[in-house]
């Protein structure tokens, strides 16, 4: 563990990423305390520019709502949707990849054609269709993001399992009479963990981008304030009120950047042999 941290912190970007992410998490957790009022509530005149009033440092939007409060509450939505939809993708992708890689043959063929189908379909367009048809809500958004995001997980796990499957220690386990379930669980999956962790951290970032894009198009959960929604609502007034699009966008960039940096740091820390090459 200390070794892991030592290798992680050698990547300066990854440490910066971690600090940014911790800040975003802190804001999300403290949002209800810092801004107890609903972020949908009108608090001042509309189009109040930033830095004009101390109480509303980032100004107000087209309906006089506090932009800063919106950002804080939006952080909750972005992080939650990003995290949960990634978990759901893992739950779909890992078993499919593990079964395909371990059993091979027609099981592999069938599962991989299925995966390929979802990978070929333009995934943002599919997400739009899914959310639109099942009505925008947190559940439909998480579901849609998970459905378009799992194929890379399945392919990664399949590839890893396939190469581990022919590893001699797995063959030794087969000869020693262990059951398939034990072999997958004890011999194979623990050795695929590092690449899955790295991929998952990058997937949270992609999921946050996807959620914000859906909300931008008006497909966000109508009850929840989100960064994408804020930008979408301000799209038509960009010429009059730049700050309404600028700050939420900046929040997305920082969060996604932080997650990507962390992903790289994890990669360096978990696959020390691979990362040395690039340096």
């Amino acid at each position, binding site marked *: 563990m200390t070794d892991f941290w030592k290798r992680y912190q050698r990547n300066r970007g990854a440490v910066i990423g971690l600090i940014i992410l911790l800040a975003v998490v802190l804001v999300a957790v403290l949002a209800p305390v810092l801004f107890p009022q609903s972020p949908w509530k009108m608090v001042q005149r509309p189009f109040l520019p930033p830095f004009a009033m101390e109480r509303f440092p980032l100004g107000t939007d087209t309906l006089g709502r506090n932009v800063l409060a919106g950002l804080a509450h939006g952080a909750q939505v972005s992080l939650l949707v990003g995290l949960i939809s990634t978990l759901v993708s893992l739950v779909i992708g890992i078993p499919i990849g593990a079964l395909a890689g371990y059993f091979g043959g027609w099981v592999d063929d069938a599962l991989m054609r299925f995966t390929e189908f979802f990978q070929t379909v333009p995934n943002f367009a599919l997400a739009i269709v899914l959310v639109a048809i099942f009505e925008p809500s947190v559940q439909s958004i998480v579901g849609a993001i998970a459905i378009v995001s799992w194929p890379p997980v399945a392919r990664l796990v399949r590839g890893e399992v396939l190469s581990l499957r022919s590893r001699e220690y797995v063959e*030794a386990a087969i000869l020693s009479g262990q059951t398939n379930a034990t072999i997958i669980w004890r011999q194979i999956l623990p050795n695929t963990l590092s690449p899955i962790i790295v991929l998952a951290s990058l997937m949270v970032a992609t999921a946050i981008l996807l959620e914000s894009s859906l909300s931008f198009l008006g497909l966000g959960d109508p009850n929840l304030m989100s960064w994408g929604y804020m930008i979408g609502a301000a799209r038509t007034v960009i010429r009059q009120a730049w700050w309404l699009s600028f700050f939420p966008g900046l929040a997305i960039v920082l969060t996604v950047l932080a997650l990507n940096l962390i992903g790289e740091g994890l990669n360096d820390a978990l696959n020390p042999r691979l990362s040395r090459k690039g340096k």
Partner: protein
Amino acid sequence: MTSTPSEPVLRIEDLQIALPEGADRAFAVDDVSYELNAGEILCIVGESGSGKSMSANAMMGLLPDQVRPTAGHIFFDGQDLLTLSEAELRDLRGRRIAMIFQEPMSALNPLMRIEDQISEVFEAHNLLTPKERRARTLELLNEVQIPDPEKAMQAYPFQLSGGQRQRVMIAMALALEPDVLIADEPTTALDVTTQAQILELIHDLRDRHGMAVMFITHDFGVVAEIADRVAVMQFGKIVEKGTAEEVLDNPQHDYTRKLIAAIPKLHAEKQEMVTSPTPILEVIGLCKTYRSGGGLFGGPERVVKAVKMINLKLAEGETLGIVGESGSGKSSVGRCLVRLMEPDAGSVFLAGEDMAHLKGEKLRSARKSIQMIFQDPFASLNPRTKIGRIIAEGPIAHGVPAQVAFAKAAELLELVGLDKSALDRYPHEFSGGQRQRVGIARALALEPRVIIADEAVSALDVSIQAQVLDLLADLKARLNLALVFITHDLRVAAQICDRIAVMQKGEVVEIGTAHDIFNAPQSAYTQSLIEAIPGREKELAAAS
């Protein structure tokens, strides 16, 4: 072979090359000096990690990043190569000093035709017109005896065999008639018969062109075959150097003596046949065919008959060698025996029960009696599992209480010569030889009656190899095990096997006692295999 005394073309003086911080020692090579004369083959010999390739890479200016020469000189043609600029070195590379590598597949660009890769050498030094380059390339391919050189010119590397690719590499190195040819383990990745051909080719070319050859190898057999002079390296230092006769027949340094003693002798004892009325293992009509491609969207199907109607018998306490070159089907046989691979036809009777047709629970319990030792000591142990667990897993899966299984694991560790403190440690804390001992302990944990050893010592350095072979022989005798020993190395087979089956293209071409196979081979293929063993002639001469 007599070396011609003349002015050395290359002289290395007190060379020292530093390794980056955190390496297992400070210097890759330290205080190394030697000379290379025109028309002479100098072998640099050492085990892995001895630093034997480092000085060669230094003279080409091809050292890895972070590895730098820190002292000494490399004199070539009156100048010190270590003081030359990159542009000056580049002018020498390929023109005056050329190099060939271990893996001819990865040493060639997979996307370029052979012709382009060879004529690039002329282009790099602005020599000849495109038309002349083409003609010269054809000449070179003829000289290295590639079959159908016109066609080979148009081929991509993946369309050639391993031996042909190495010939292409040699043609490339010869292109500008260099003064020095560096050959870095050029035959290690090749089969023994191909190796013999390539060694002969290098020998001939040296005679014809009079260049100096620096031949880097780990194999004393190859040294005996080709060297005029020898330098032996250990831990980055030269421990002994001299003419081939001096070093091979009368080694002075302990390390050299140990290395030479560790080489399995090409001599099989004539012994009583172990006869047992009922064999423990009997293979009848075993067949295995690989099919690839095909399917709904694949291309045309490719069919390779890897194993064709094999029959074998193994008596209790006997060691049967299965020997063959790559692609002979020897590993497929081993894997079919334990059902890591499904045979297409045939029977495998293990103590009277047909392993080839068991399923599910019956297969699981039958497998207890037949276990396997694997080739790669690094891939054969799960990196995330402690040694104790690795050994105990099998018995636990068969219902032995964990405590009993772990106690047994401790005993087994001692049996294979490891301390029982190893129980709680992870595989990465052990060396290759030690891991192979753990692999043996794991195989023994289920108290099998037959063990399949698939190239079990091929990945080990020769001194470690000798120790593991001794351990196997000892265990076999003590536990009355029957052993199927699969190997490409005839020397190893000669040392450990009672009987040997020689395989070629999926068939057993000859089977007999080890003594008969080596002293009176019946089939032409077995004869060619034995003749190709490096160092054999010298050994025969010494014996008579």
